[in-house]
């Protein structure tokens, strides 16, 4: 083998190791018999069983899924609406200001977003809980949805919408029968992104949650302070499995669609 290809191969291996060794360790140790996270004590599914009995942890999983589903929905609706106005309304006062401001939360440190939301909720005397987390996550998610949908709308042939109007569709009908269906792939991608962002967010949730609304990342963090239990490895493995199944399904559907062409 030549020097160059050796270098390339080892670079590749190192890169993948960098990405996947920690994940592999988590999966491996989730099947560890031993209570100690760093000592291998033989294969067992004992922690999965204990996990199913840990109501606190399961509650937080349900809470996290609820928050993620609702906040992603809210983010998608708001983000799509923002993208449509930015891409399609010709000119309105403050268009430039809006289009730059919509992207601000993307670069804003989450701590600051979280703090400012907390201050707002306190000032408005809103009791913190499920809905405040949903709102916080939606503000973050909607920026991503807007970016994705906006890019798609920019790339869309304007004459398609003009054709719809020409054929008698009012602007609103055009939006629902042509513009949005054509932007659907990026709207779905936006939803998926907002969902994952919400699922793994810790910072915003800890600022805006209240009693009885503990999300999974918060629960894991608080358990970590009492010591890492292999249950955490188990739940992480389950989450990764879920994500992998969703990704595989998406890939499979996409491939079948291309094959049908």
């Amino acid at each position, binding site marked *: 083998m030549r020097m160059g290809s050796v270098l390339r191969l080892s670079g590749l291996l190192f890169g993948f190791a960098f990405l996947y060794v920690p994940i592999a360790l988590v999966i491996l140790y989730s099947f560890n018999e031993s209570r100690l996270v760093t000592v291998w004590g033989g294969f067992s599914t004992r922690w999965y069983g204990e996990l199913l009995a840990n109501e606190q942890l399961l509650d937080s999983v349900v809470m996290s899924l609820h928050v993620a589903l609702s906040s992603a929905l809210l983010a998608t609706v708001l983000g799509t609406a923002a993208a449509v106005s930015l891409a399609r309304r010709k000119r309105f006062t403050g268009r430039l200001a809006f289009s730059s401001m919509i992207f601000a939360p993307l670069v804003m440190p989450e701590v600051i977003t979280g703090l400012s939301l907390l201050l707002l909720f306190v000032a408005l005397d809103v009791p913190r809980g499920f809905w405040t987390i949903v709102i916080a996550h939606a503000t973050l998610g909607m920026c991503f949805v807007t970016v994705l949908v906006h890019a798609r709308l920019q790339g869309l042939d304007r*004459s*398609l919408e*003009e054709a*719809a109007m*020409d054929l*008698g*569709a*009012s602007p609103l009908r*055009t939006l629902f029968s042509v513009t949005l269906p054509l932007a659907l792939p990026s709207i779905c991608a936006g939803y998926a992104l907002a969902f994952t962002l919400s699922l793994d967010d810790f910072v915003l949730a800890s600022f805006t949650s209240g009693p009885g609304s503990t999300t999974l990342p918060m629960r894991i963090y608080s358990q970590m302070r009492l010591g890492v239990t292999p249950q955490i490895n188990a739940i992480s493995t389950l989450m990764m499995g879920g994500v992998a199944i969703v990704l595989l399904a998406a890939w499979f559907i996409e491939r079948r669609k291309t094959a049908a062409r």
Partner: protein
Amino acid sequence: MNKPPLITLDSVTKRYGAVVAVDTVSLEIDAGAFFALLGPSGCGKTTLMRLIAGFETPDEGRILIDGEDMAGVPPHLRPVNMMFQSYALFPHMDVASNIAFGLVQARMPKPKIKARVADLLDLVQLKGFEARKPDQLSGGQRQRVALARALARNPRLVLLDEPLAALDKKLREETQFELMRVQRELGTAFLVVTHDQDEAMVMAQRIAVMRSGRIEQIGTPLMIYEEPATRFVAGFIGDANQLEGTVVETGQGLCSVELAKGARVTARGASVNGAKVVVMVRPEHMQLGGAGLPGLVLDCAYRGDMQMIRVELLGGGIVRVASFGVQAQAMLQRGSQVMVSFAPQFARVLPS
């Protein structure tokens, strides 16, 4: 008898910043007419079409459809339909839904829509393609779906933006006659925008020649070819020899024009003595021989049915002479001396 025109444009002007895209254009299109807007790219013909469709609003002037002022009427409420240059077929709908789109918007009952779509597919000879998606069609088939979609609502006028530009040469010729057939069968008025003079000449009953936002001439293909109003029209449609000179004598619809080196020619047209003019003669109306302008043969291009001979006149300038028939068989030597002549009735005096 005196029916009002279907479309009336009354001194319509459209500006984009400092650029005047359409400059005080007035024209009328009758119901059932096949009308072509012809001009080089960027002459404002597409903008004019978009003004009629309602995608742009004129800065000045009025657009009337069936005598009704279209100011403030949005595109979806106008009785015209457009076939886009890109066809703009909805990629997420099949052929039948694409064609039915306009009918669904008009809230036509479902069974009637089905029947109408079947009729239209018949008209454009695409039976059996109902369930195809646009990306499963060839360019020519897409073009026909777009035409059927634009015709579905029975519009008073169909706007066709460069309808043949995306097709290859052979298909383009077939489609020209196809469009003419459909137009004849339905009696719907067609307004075609094109930069291709052949297309306009073949298909249209009337042509408006546009140049930098203005209409240079409106007339039948025959009028525009035989009686061009300006130098631009003469040069844009067909081949034209243009000889510059000064009018020295006028009378009885004829002008005597003195060319650069003192040669005089006679041509039809009205002008005044001393005016700088151009004498326009089509290559097929020029002959070699006879009493005329002396010149040297530059080259001959044999084209089978005719020969195109380029002659450099001793008085300056190069003319093209089309030679048909037996005469065409004798190839002329480069550099041989010839006389170029033409009958006054085939020569036109145009303002310089």
